[in-house]
């Protein structure tokens, strides 16, 4: 079966006075029904621009979009604005980061859900209202019959996000995009919302794209992960591959710079040096090379001059855009994890990674 969503060589550029902003520069991925794709990256890596591109939200802006976005075989890049509008909300829906600014403060929560539902379905207001109450109940809002007439400001942050989810699900979308759905929420509420998204996903059978900078959230929800850097794909693979056998130095950097709750405290975090590049002047060759610690391992000036292709290394479906050879990667990652994972925690880790080459002693 063809995947529900196919993105092929997508480029989204913005022409500005300062130059051409290459926000998304040639990314490809596919997503099947019932699966969850996590897109991670730092701010400015192009994750939100990608999701807005899929939703057709760049129409009417200066964005120059090339490539293909196929939803169920239908190309959204070449589709008419009217057709995209028909699909948006019914076949694909989006949950935004900040529910307070993405809901209209002037209308009740119920009105906003009813409106979204009636745009795509020819039903009476009463039927739509019943549907709205039903949805609010399903996303876990207590006494939905009365809360449906409340205004967004009368909801707490977590409840607003639940209402947003209800709105997104009102037409039973096949593709749900959640852009930083829990970033504005406290951990306990975040846990509730993540639970809700995964329960509803299995109930509705939709494909979900979750965009976040929090690797914990991604690990919690995703089947596959796409790591973006400077508008390109740095690494793509299953959640187990990305967290267990990451292949790209940028992914290593992300993993080692996070303080981890599930491991004994490390003496020091290993940050990624420098800052993300400007998307107007993306570095030549591998966009990550100015911040990469391994350019000398590759040798020569290859990282500066040659763009590394995204290629599969060992496991099928796990690809990274890096010049390091498979042996070099295995060696470097083993060294790095030996340095960041304290001794008392290393034993079970080593068992998991069978065939790990001799890990050198941490310095």
């Amino acid at each position, binding site marked *: 079966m063809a995947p529900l969503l196919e993105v092929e060589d997508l480029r989204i550029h913005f022409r500005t006075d300062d130059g051409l902003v290459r926000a998304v520069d040639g990314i490809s991925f596919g997503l099947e029904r019932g699966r969850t794709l996590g897109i991670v990256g730092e701010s400015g890596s192009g994750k939100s621009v990608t999701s807005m591109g899929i939703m057709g939200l760049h129409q009417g802006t200066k964005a120059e979009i090339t490539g293909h976005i196929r939803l169920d075989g239908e190309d959204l890049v070449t589709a008419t604005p009217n057709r995209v509008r028909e699909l948006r909300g019914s076949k694909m829906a989006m949950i935004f980061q900040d529910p307070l600014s993405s809901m209209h403060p002037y209308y009740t929560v119920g009105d906003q859900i009813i409106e979204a539902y009636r745009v795509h379905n020819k039903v009476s207001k009463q039927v739509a209202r019943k549907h709205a109450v039903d949805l609010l109940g399903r996303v876990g809002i207590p006494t939905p019959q009365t809360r449906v007439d409340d205004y967004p400001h009368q909801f707490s942050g977590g409840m607003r996000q639940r209402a947003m989810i209800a709105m997104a699900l009102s037409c039973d979308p096949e593709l749900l995009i959640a852009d930083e759905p829990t970033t504005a929420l*406290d951990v306990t509420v975040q846990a*509730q919302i993540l639970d809700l998204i995964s329960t509803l996903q299995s109930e509705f059978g939709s494909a979900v794209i979750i965009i976040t900078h929090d690797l914990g959230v991604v690990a919690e929800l995703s089947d596959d992960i796409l790591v973006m850097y400077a508008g390109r794909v740095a690494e793509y693979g299953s959640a187990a591959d990305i967290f267990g056998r990451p292949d790209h130095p940028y992914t290593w950097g992300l993993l080692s710079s996070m303080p981890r709750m599930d491991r004994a*405290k490390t003496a020091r975090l290993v940050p990624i040096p420098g800052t993300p590049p400007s998307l107007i002047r993306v570095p030549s060759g591998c966009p990550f090379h100015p911040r990469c610690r391994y350019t000398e391992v590759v040798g020569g000036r290859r990282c500066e001059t040659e763009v590394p292709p995204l290629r599969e290394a060992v496991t099928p479906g796990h690809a990274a855009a890096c010049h390091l050879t498979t042996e070099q990667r295995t060696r470097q990652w083993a060294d790095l994890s030996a340095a960041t994972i304290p001794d008392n925690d290393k034993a079970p880790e080593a068992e998991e990674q069978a065939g790990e080459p001799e890990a050198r002693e941490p310095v």
Partner: protein
Amino acid sequence: MTEQIQTPPAPEAGRVAGRDGDPLLQVTDLVRHFPVTRGVVFRRKVGAVQAVDGINLSVTRGQTLGLVGESGCGKTTTGRLLVRLDEPTSGQIVIDGHDVTHLRQGQMRPLRREIQMIFQDPYSSLNPRQTVGGIVGAPFRLQNVKVPGGVRRNVQELLELVGLNPEHYNRYPHEFSGGQRQRIGIARTLALRPKLIVADEPVSALDVSIQAQVINLLEDLQDELGLTYVVIAHDLSVVRHISDQVAVMYLGKIVELADREKLYAKPRHPYTVALLSAVPVPEPLSSPTGQRERRQRIRLEGDVPSPLLPPPACRFHTRCWKAQEICRTIEPPLTELIPGHQVACHFPENTPQVSASSPESAPQPA
């Protein structure tokens, strides 16, 4: 003690030989209630937001206290009270032997050299119309401190200390990235060589890779300059990484206070247990069949109650799965269960008789 305050601290002088082990900061029964009033001419008090309601803390010299809790638990208000940006309703704050609880602005000024704050948002905490030199040099100007070598040289040394290029002296904040701006804020904080730094969410506005840079910087500065930190954060993994002691706040009260290792290894207050189990772990779980599994977690239902009308007795009882009648009638005091571990709960978790009650074995809240 008093002489230390009156002599302007020469930035090179470094740390005043501190008696390690004695508390630099001591907070007793600190209360801050924000009155809620009605009426325009005759303002009547109709209630109070109990933002901070009787907390006790002490921070040892050279150590870091982490203050965690959900939004609205009063952690930021506590931070603002500590640096006296706000007036406590009652209680006492003693910093380095000086009672600063009700000092007026003028009296407070000499003490400001000793206590500084790092703010959350590096975009709004720097004046966009001042150059980096002006921003970092402002403390010298405001405090009338004459520094050997001149302000400019000192500012450049500070910029170097926090990992910025000293040649950027004449640049404006907008020319810097978020992480660099946070470094500028830290340089300003360090200008007068304070003893105590209150950092309110110092890294939450930054990207993960940059977060690690700033956390490492804060740790290095602590080692180098013997600083004492109070770090306020909602990110439990960050707090675990940098704190020696951790205080967990819920609705204006401290519910648990312990050494880092003790708190994270064996949390005793149900709220702490729930909070820790809610943190997503970057390690996917997959079962042998290849299907993804969700971790078993304690899910707290609902939201934090309003601090305007906090629940009586134990404030957590409305969301607690262990709550019984006594929790609704008698407030549990913050008591030391084992040395170095204080908990305010009638039915603490992880107590010796209950063998390591993990999140999995705890019943789900209804």
